[in-house]
């Protein structure tokens, strides 16, 4: 079996899921927030805060995990000749989908990765989020079956593929040198989840490994459910189950398993909006082709459409905290429910308009 194919065997996707699950719980032990060893949405939100895009003082930090995911994937893509700069598949729609995915995730308080990690730490509220996620993915599948298509991308010159990795390298410099301007930027939380973090170099190293392996194995938490429902393929689903079990076992060993619904870390108990937020996120991720982690890995291999989605998520994080749509431990933000409903309507319009349901096929335009 060639090295390329070895990465795609069932064993290696189980290993990938297990490694992510254990790494996340260990990162938590080393300082990351509880049940948030890795959360792509939360960590992009922290980066948005560090750059001053929102004013929630407790969630501002440049998370090296996000940087490592992109750069690890970049290294794998270059090593295996899969760095293919490309873009132009409805980038603005992808930006909006990234924005809405973040809005939904911050109503639940976590992306699909954190939903699994919350469950593995005993947070029962995550079950409602995961149910919402599956519901959102199912709506997305309906559109895919109805011919949903954001159009073909095109190969581009190398620079386009290097933009997001370069931004990540810039963020790494800001993190390492902790530049402090008279404006207050770069902002680093002194209390709350943003102040809780594992040592930078350890987090970066672990994230580089995850980025590398996930680029090779195509790990994706949204495609895991989508592929089972859409094409009866359990490859990625195996990885997600492996993540969940490994994180649960690791939490048990590390003394981080606390079952229950009340008082769970960075979580609320409003189950309607735990569910609703993740319906929106699941739908937006499915319409964009993958979970937030996958969008980072694709960005690392030169996909600038995925990079635009990532920037949409960071923009959405700024909006969610400035406009009180993000939840807190006390419950949904004042405008959270309204934002979820508006977001779902926008996603349904996108799903309908970009599918054959309009009776107008893309080839005819």
């Amino acid at each position: 079996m060639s090295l390329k194919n070895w990465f795609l065997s069932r064993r290696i996707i189980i290993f990938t899921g297990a490694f992510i699950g254990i790494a996340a719980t260990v990162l938590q032990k080393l300082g990351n927030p509880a049940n948030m060893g890795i959360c792509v949405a939360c960590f992009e939100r922290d980066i948005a805060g560090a750059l001053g895009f929102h004013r929630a003082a407790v969630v501002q930090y440049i998370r090296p995990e996000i940087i490592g995911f992109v750069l690890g994937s970049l290294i794998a893509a270059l090593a295996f000749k899969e760095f293919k700069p490309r873009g132009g598949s409805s980038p603005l729609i992808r930006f909006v989908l990234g924005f809405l995915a973040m809005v939904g995730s911050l109503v639940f308080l976590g992306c699909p990765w954190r939903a699994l990690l919350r469950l593995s730490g005993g947070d029962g509220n995550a079950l409602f989020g995961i149910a919402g996620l599956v519901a959102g993915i199912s709506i997305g599948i309906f559109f895919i079956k109805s011919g949903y298509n954001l159009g073909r991308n095109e190969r581009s010159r190398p620079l386009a593929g290097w933009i997001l990795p370069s931004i990540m390298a810039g963020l790494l410099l800001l993190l390492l040198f902790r530049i402090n301007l008279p404006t207050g930027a770069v902002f680093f939380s002194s209390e709350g989840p943003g102040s809780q973090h594992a040592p930078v170099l350890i987090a970066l190293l672990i994230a580089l490994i995850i980025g590398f392996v996930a680029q090779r194995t195509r790990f994706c938490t949204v495609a895991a459910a989508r592929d089972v429902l859409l094409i009866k393929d359990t490859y990625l689903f195996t990885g997600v189950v492996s993540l969940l079990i490994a994180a649960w076992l690791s939490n048990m060993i590390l003394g981080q398993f606390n079952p229950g619904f009340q008082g769970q870390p960075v979580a609320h108990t409003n189950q309607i909006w735990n569910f609703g937020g993740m319906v929106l996120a699941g739908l937006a991720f499915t319409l964009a082709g993958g979970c937030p982690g996958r969008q980072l890995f694709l960005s690392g291999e030169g996909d600038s459409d995925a990079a635009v989605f990532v920037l949409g998520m960071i923009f959405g994080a700024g909006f969610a905290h400035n406009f009180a749509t993000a939840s807190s431990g006390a419950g949904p933000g004042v405008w959270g429910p309204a934002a979820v409903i508006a977001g779902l309507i926008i996603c349904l319009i996108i799903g309908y308009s970009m599918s054959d349901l309009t009776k107008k096929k893309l080839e005819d335009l």
Partner: protein
Amino acid sequence: MSEKFDVRGLSCPLPVVKVKNKLTELKQGLLEVLVDTGTAKDNVVRMSKNAGWKVEVKEQGEEYLLIITK
């Protein structure tokens, strides 16, 4: 009978969905598929193998030609 099916440039999961639909229409024979990313190639190969179809992968520069026999 052989025909070439171009799913280059499409993002996940459209390549595998379109190929699967195409193969469902095809009663028997060969389908040549052009893909341009490793992910699309892997997904189509896995789907074909799971369905019990034979699939041969040929690298063509930075793209792949997949020859699926049903």
